[in-house]
């Protein structure tokens, strides 16, 4: 049980020790925007306590897949979906599944930073708890811990009451990471969290990811092959054959195998930068 658990006061059995058990399984997931199919029968196991990396060219549906894992896909009015996603054996799209509880358990950091402009930096960090009606005992310590883990504490310690919009783009992204950490999700989905960051901040985030993955299942989208190699345990390559065709998984498996002895020649081409 970490200091964070004590501060937030979550029941230990739900988070803490048991958190490592969260396993996310996608079965035959296909997705559409209107009549355009963007994902073709994606099946993927995201193992508990591991970092899974999704790699692939732009527009092949990685973000869409990530949003499906958190039930955000259905917010797009024309979006449609088939297949199922299981969190610890329970279908999150099942008839009895609660959308808000699912999203509370499966946190998300978006490709574009989106802090709440009406809230201060500190309030942004606590926003998830406030928005889900969770009581917090020691706000200041929680804010500090989350900002430290996101590598943002030094820059913001003296301006916690300024608007979240007053930060730079990269700082906003780290604020969003801190905001996602504060609710202690069991699964954390990260959509290119480091795309706007310098190497030092990236290092901090990667360290946090490695640290978190003992308690939290992490799925990360990245365009950076070195990063995927550094931080992920398993890896999945998404590809798209033609413009207008759906994206699909070429190969998935342990990261070192994907990078050193891939089964598919397209994987070897992609990870070595010989694509297209």
């Amino acid at each position, binding site marked *: 049980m970490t200091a964070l658990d004590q501060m937030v006061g979550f029941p230990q059995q739900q988070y803490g020790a048991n958190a490592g058990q969260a396993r996310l399984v996608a079965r035959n997931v296909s997705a559409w925007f209107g009549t355009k199919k963007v994902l073709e029968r994606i099946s993927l196991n995201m193992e508990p306590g591991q970092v899974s990396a999704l790699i692939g060219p732009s527009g092949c549906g990685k973000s869409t897949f990530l949003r499906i894992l958190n039930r*955000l896909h259905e917010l797009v009015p024309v979006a449609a979906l088939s297949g199922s996603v299981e969190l610890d054996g329970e279908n999150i799209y099942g008839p009895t599944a609660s959308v*808000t509880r699912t999203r509370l358990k499966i*946190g998300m950091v*978006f490709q574009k930073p989106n802090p*709440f*402009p009406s809230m201060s930096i500190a309030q942004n960090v606590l926003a998830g708890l406030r*928005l889900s009606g969770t009581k917090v005992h020691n706000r200041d310590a929680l804010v500090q811990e989350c900002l430290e883990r996101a590598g943002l504490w030094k820059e913001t310690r003296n301006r916690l009451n300024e608007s979240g919009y007053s930060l730079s783009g990269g700082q906003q992204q780290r604020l969003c990471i801190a905001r*996602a950490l504060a609710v202690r999700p069991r699964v954390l989905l990260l959509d290119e969290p480091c795309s706007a960051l310098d190497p030092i901040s990236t290092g901090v985030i990667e360290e946090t990811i490695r640290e978190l993955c003992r308690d939290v299942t992490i799925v990360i989208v990245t365009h950076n092959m070195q990063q995927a190699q550094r931080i992920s345990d398993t890896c999945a390559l998404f590809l798209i054959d033609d413009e207008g065709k759906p994206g699909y998984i070429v190969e998935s498996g342990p990261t070192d195998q994907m990078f050193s002895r891939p089964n598919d020649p397209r994987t070897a081409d992609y990870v070595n930068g010989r694509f297209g």
Partner: protein
Amino acid sequence: MTSIAPPGPDTLVARRPEVEWSPAAGAERPPSRRRGNRSAAIELGSCALASLAFIWLLFTIAGLSAPFGFVVCWYLLFLVSYAVLSNSLHGRLVMKDRLATIGVWSGSLVAGLALAAVIGFVVFKGAPVAFAKFPHFWTTDMTRGGAATPVTSVGAGAAIMGSVEQVGIAALFSVPLAILTAVYLVESQSVLAKIVRNIVDAMTGTPSIIAGLFVYLIWVQPHGVNGKSGVAAAVALTVLMLPLTTRASMEVIKVIPGGLREAALGLGAPPWRVVLQVVVPTARTGLITAAILGVARTTGETAEVLFTAGGNQRYNLNPVHGWQDDLPLRIYELIGQPSLNAIREAWGVAFVLVSVVLAFFVLSRSVGSSGRGTLISRLLRAARRPTIGDTP
């Protein structure tokens, strides 16, 4: 055929020659962004003076006396001379920039003058009445009026209180409802939302007298002489204020980036919390502006209150019982009386009305432009904040 010249080394400099963008090396303070300098002002002034003198000479020699034509000729000659001067001294780019600036300024000047004339006339006619023995006119009612009594013996107090109560009640009805409706219409994709959206649009265009007639027919007439009251007027005003505020609020809520809603939903927030804790707070300044503009608009509406408020020379602070006065209605009634005094009093009431509406507009602008904070602190800050240009 035109050829596009490659940007020369002086293009960047030529664009804004009057602005000093780069501070001296090692300067601590940012450079001032104030545009213009003395020589630019001298060029402008000399062109204006020279063309004035020339046109004056021309009109005197020709024996013309047409003030409007004089101004137009002066303006045109000024434009030409200023363009020629700028072109020969600074080149084409500067000339275009200056002409565009002059165009924008003179356009806003003309529009501003028209507005200032309307308001200025009301101030000119009404302020002496409203401020004679201040605050007498703002607190007394109309009961001691008459053809023989001096203007200063009556006041708009009853009308002010009536307006405040009626508009206040209407705002109480419509502002929360309008904001909720706007949230629903923006967030929902359903067929019902589409229908309501069209109804709101149609209601925005409803002639205000229809709103007044509507309340008159369904409420006032069935209740006979007791039908008219402050609340009846407030309901009629609501019919107008509700769609106005809804439309304005919708525009404000629409521009909130969808990413914010997704961020909040992605954190596991139920939709109603997203609306209350993310959407509305983010749009707060705009929503306040929308509400105040709706209130300001309805404060001056006459047709709704014509058959619903009744009018009353005495104070009647009870909005649910008895006829009640209000500002536009009082103006309407005073103007109709065959007495010079009544006409002058009407100007006084008009002045009160214009100042109330102007105060609302100023309030909405300053609230709309200030930053984060609670509503109260923001209003306080807006009241204390120096206007733009006062900053050293």
